[in-house]
């Protein structure tokens, strides 16, 4: 493939692969905890870290990681205090992060890499080999922690009060989750940019939770969707010349809309079918029984009646006879007996 012939695109695809896998694995817990915007906030804080890196001529990825993790810990400590001002404190921290980043970057001497847009919206093709190595370490560490502590992070995200009551280390787990988010933010910075990081954590999970039956399934499905949209978006952006971050996120949102619409249609169809049957029942002229004209179908301990292709199971209630629907299955031919 042409896209794989260039070194910068190989590094870009590697980076997008890691981001696509890691961001949803962490994001699912944020969705469960109803803290979807935490990633955005830490992205803001990371910008100050980037600026400090540029000013001190150290690698921005490292300083951004330190700033984001510090921000994450501060946020959890503020939340743990449980004051109503916690919300305002978070807002102040977030705005302070982005304002500090913008001002500090403007102070950088000319000739430095101070391209603000590259950090805000991503510049995947500038990923260096050293970046890929750092991203690889972050990926292994984040996925390792999620594997090790996933069930506990789920417990705290699902019902923090219960977790506290039974003696799980709630504050520690919350700080760990926030630190994972911070690490993911820094990992995603190059690929989707600080302003779009949250999208890659949240949107794959929003798609997966409509399709999955269990939390575990949601995590795996979200990672698969993240991986797919991230790599596909990066590849597409190479051919269309559009920014990788925006392309990936638009792709993920398109998938979200598609799945949401499909699920809505499926539910509406099921509702309509149910209503139609309810009307059949309401207009029912007789109680099923011997000689009612509907084929009787023995079913375990009772008899169903084949009524226009679906099975009715009559049972007495206080208010009269009630009919349960017994499955979509057609009655086995040999069991059908006409009275």
């Amino acid at each position, binding site marked *: 493939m042409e896209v794989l012939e260039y070194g910068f695109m190989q590094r870009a695809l590697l980076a997008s692969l890691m981001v696509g896998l890691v961001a949803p694995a962490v994001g699912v817990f944020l969705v469960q905890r109803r803290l979807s915007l935490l990633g955005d906030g830490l992205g803001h804080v990371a910008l100050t870290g980037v600026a400090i890196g540029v000013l001190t001529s150290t690698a921005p990825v490292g300083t951004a990681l330190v700033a984001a993790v510090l921000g994450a810990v501060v946020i959890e400590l503020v939340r743990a205090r449980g004051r109503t001002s916690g919300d305002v404190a978070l807002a102040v921290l977030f705005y302070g992060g982005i304002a500090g980043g913008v001002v500090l970057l403007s102070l950088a001497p000319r000739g430095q890499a101070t391209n603000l847009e590259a950090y805000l919206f991503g510049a995947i093709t500038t990923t260096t080999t050293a970046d890929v190595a750092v991203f690889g370490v972050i990926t292994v560490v984040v996925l390792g922690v999620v594997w090790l502590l996933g069930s506990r992070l789920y417990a705290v995200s*699902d019902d923090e009060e*219960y977790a506290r*009551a*039974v003696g*799980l280390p709630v504050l520690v787990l919350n700080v760990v989750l926030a630190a994972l988010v911070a690490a993911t933010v820094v990992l995603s910075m190059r690929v989707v940019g600080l302003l779009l990081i949250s999208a890659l954590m949240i949107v794959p999970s929003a798609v997966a939770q409509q399709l999955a039956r*269990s939390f575990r399934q*949601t995590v795996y499905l979200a990672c698969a969707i993240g991986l797919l949209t991230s790599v596909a978006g990066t590849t597409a952006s190479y051919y269309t010349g559009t920014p990788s971050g925006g392309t990936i996120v638009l792709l993920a949102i398109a998938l979200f809309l598609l799945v949401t619409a499909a699920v809505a249609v499926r539910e509406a169809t099921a509702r309509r079918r149910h209503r139609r049957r309810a009307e059949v029942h309401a207009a029912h002229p007789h109680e099923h029984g011997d000689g009612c004209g509907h084929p009787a179908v023995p079913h375990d301990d009772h008899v169903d009646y084949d009524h226009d292709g679906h099975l009715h199971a009559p049972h007495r209630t206080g208010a009269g006879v009630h009919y349960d629907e017994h499955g979509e299955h057609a009655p086995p031919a040999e069991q059908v007996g006409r009275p």
Partner: protein
Amino acid sequence: MTAVRLRDASIGYGDVAVVQGVDLAVADGEAVAVLGSNGSGKTTLARGLLGLATVLGGEVEVLGAPVGRPRERGRIGYVPQRHTVSGAVPATVREVVGVGRLARLGPFGRPRPADRAAVQDAVAAVGLADRLGDPVASLSGGQQRRVLVARALAAEPELLVMDEPTAGVDAASQDALATVLAGVSATGTTLLVVTHETAALAGVLTRAVVVDHGRIAYDGPLAGAESTHDGHHHPEDTGLPPARGYRQDQPRVTTDGGR
């Protein structure tokens, strides 16, 4: 041993004491109803034992250790007053109840076969054995409440604290709960049930503690509590859904743990 001991305890939130100067001792294996009207402080009293409300004065000891100190994990079960379990992300009955087992596993431990068996037994005990792999969102309200009970039972706790387990639950589920609690109580687990109504659990709970205006107004046999409790019963407390015919589903409950 004493499962719960309060000496001149004040419990509240922030700096505001909701419960004041309470003395209470619950022996191991007792089954106690904590009664009182809305705002009496009965829930705060229970939350104080769990570390969810602040002990502002006096002493509160649970299972021999002051509240808030690190203690052996997994000895307390808790059923919060919550009507649904389903969160933003789907989860199966097995996953939700599995959380109840986590506290016993230590910081990094992974569930062993014995832990998985405990989860299955707890789910079977509340009559949902055939729903183990189903998403909790697909269960009725009464069934979801029973999932929360199973989560607490999975820890095989020494002290089980329940907050309004019968509120808004149909009669059949209330009877099922009474059967489950009778079994739990028979194994020596201490029960502390915060409730408005004792009728459904009268066969299980033997002692009543009536809380009124943050103080204990009655402490004695459950039968003697009714008049005291009713004396402080305000009309607005009856805003509960009618117990009978509230839901149409008829839950199947196995009392032998489904084995």
